[in-house]
């Protein structure tokens, strides 16, 4: 790698890059929780489908730990303009009109299997990773906001003004659309999303894991107690499921 022939740099760079990728496999020195980290140089695969389960019975009334954790993790500082500031996760309060029963639950991008945002995006900037995480590639997002029109869950925000001091793991900028990334930078590192970690400190209402793995905690729980989809009638098979609604 060190000795370089200067004549054909472009080809060399490409091959050399691939070789280097194969060569380095630094084990991430991170605390592993529910999931194992894949090697850095391995592409994500559809053997895994990341998902979340939210037990609304345990969700604390008035607790916004998950929201705060998300904002901190992803650097979502607002401009005190609630109508245009980004919100990747929010707490909903539901009141049953018949019974008067009130409950709260967090809602974020549901990482739909057949995601409407992905279907409508003209440039392919909205896309679903092999492992089911739905993201916006801000390099090619043109800010048309069609995905926001299409998302049934109001999960997306448009960045309405210039930003500064973004987190280096969560780049975001004016004129593009964004939403919950399931903390993909953490997931790739074998960690839980920030909201799940925060929730686990007290209420323990959120679970994260591989829906394809029958032995993961989330799959076992879903099997035993079931889990509802919001707007199941739309047939989107979201990766985020709820219990107790």
């Amino acid at each position: 790698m060190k000795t370089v022939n200067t004549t054909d740099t472009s080809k060399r760079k490409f091959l050399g890059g691939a070789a280097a990728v194969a060569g380095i496999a630094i084990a991430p020195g991170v605390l592993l929780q529910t999931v194992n980290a894949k090697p850095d140089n391995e592409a994500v695969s559809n053997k895994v489908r990341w998902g979340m389960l939210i037990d609304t019975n345990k969700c604390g009334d008035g607790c916004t730990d998950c929201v705060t954790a998300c904002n901190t993790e992803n650097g979502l500082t607002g401009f005190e303009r609630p109508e245009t500031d980004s919100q990747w996760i929010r707490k909903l309060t539901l009141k049953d009109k018949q019974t008067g029963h009130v409950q709260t639950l967090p809602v974020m991008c549901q990482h739909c299997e057949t995601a409407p945002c992905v279907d409508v995006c003209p440039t392919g900037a909205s896309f679903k990773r092999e492992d089911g995480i739905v993201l916006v590639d801000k390099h090619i997002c043109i800010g048309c906001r069609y995905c926001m029109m299409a998302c049934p869950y109001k999960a997306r925000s448009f960045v309405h003004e210039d930003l500064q001091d973004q987190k280096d793991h969560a780049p975001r900028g004016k004129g593009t659309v964004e939403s919950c990334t399931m903390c993909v930078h953490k997931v790739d590192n074998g960690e839980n999303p920030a909201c799940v970690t925060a929730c686990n400190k007290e209420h323990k209402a959120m679970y994260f894991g591989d829906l394809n793995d029958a032995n993961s905690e989330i799959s076992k729980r879903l099997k035993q107690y079931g889990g509802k989809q919001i707007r199941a009638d739309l047939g989107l098979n979201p990766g985020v499921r709820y219990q107790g609604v």
Partner: protein
Amino acid sequence: MVLWFRKNLQNIMLAAIAMLLATSVNVNAEVVAPVVPKGKGEQCVEPTDVMRKNHMEMLKHQRDETMHNGIRTKKHALKECIACHVQEDEKGQVARFGDDGHFCSSCHNYAGVNVDCFQCHADRPQELIGKGHKIKPHHTADFKDKAINKEALQALTEVSK
């Protein structure tokens, strides 16, 4: 007025071209190499001439791999470039993108090539955030008024023998 304009259109165009040529000659006359700040490490991940020529390709390749396939190798990652190349100076100041003292803009200002990476990406290592002046709001990519000129680009991408 309109008629006069039409009749003289050719002359006007010629005059404009002449003016343009004159200015570009001026720029060419004062070719000064950009001052590129030193990085933290000893040696870059690729030889300097390769980086000069191809850094954009590598960054772009890595960006797509990371974004779409979750490849998180560090070698060609923008984050790592920044971590090494953007440092505090003796006064504890950190240059921001757009300043001549910022690694990326030292060249990009010089060559007059605008990039929009730093509208989204952090322009300094995470631990230095909070240091350095605020970028003027709405002017994140405020680069100097220099026309691109061929010699400068050649000088930059010339393979060092």
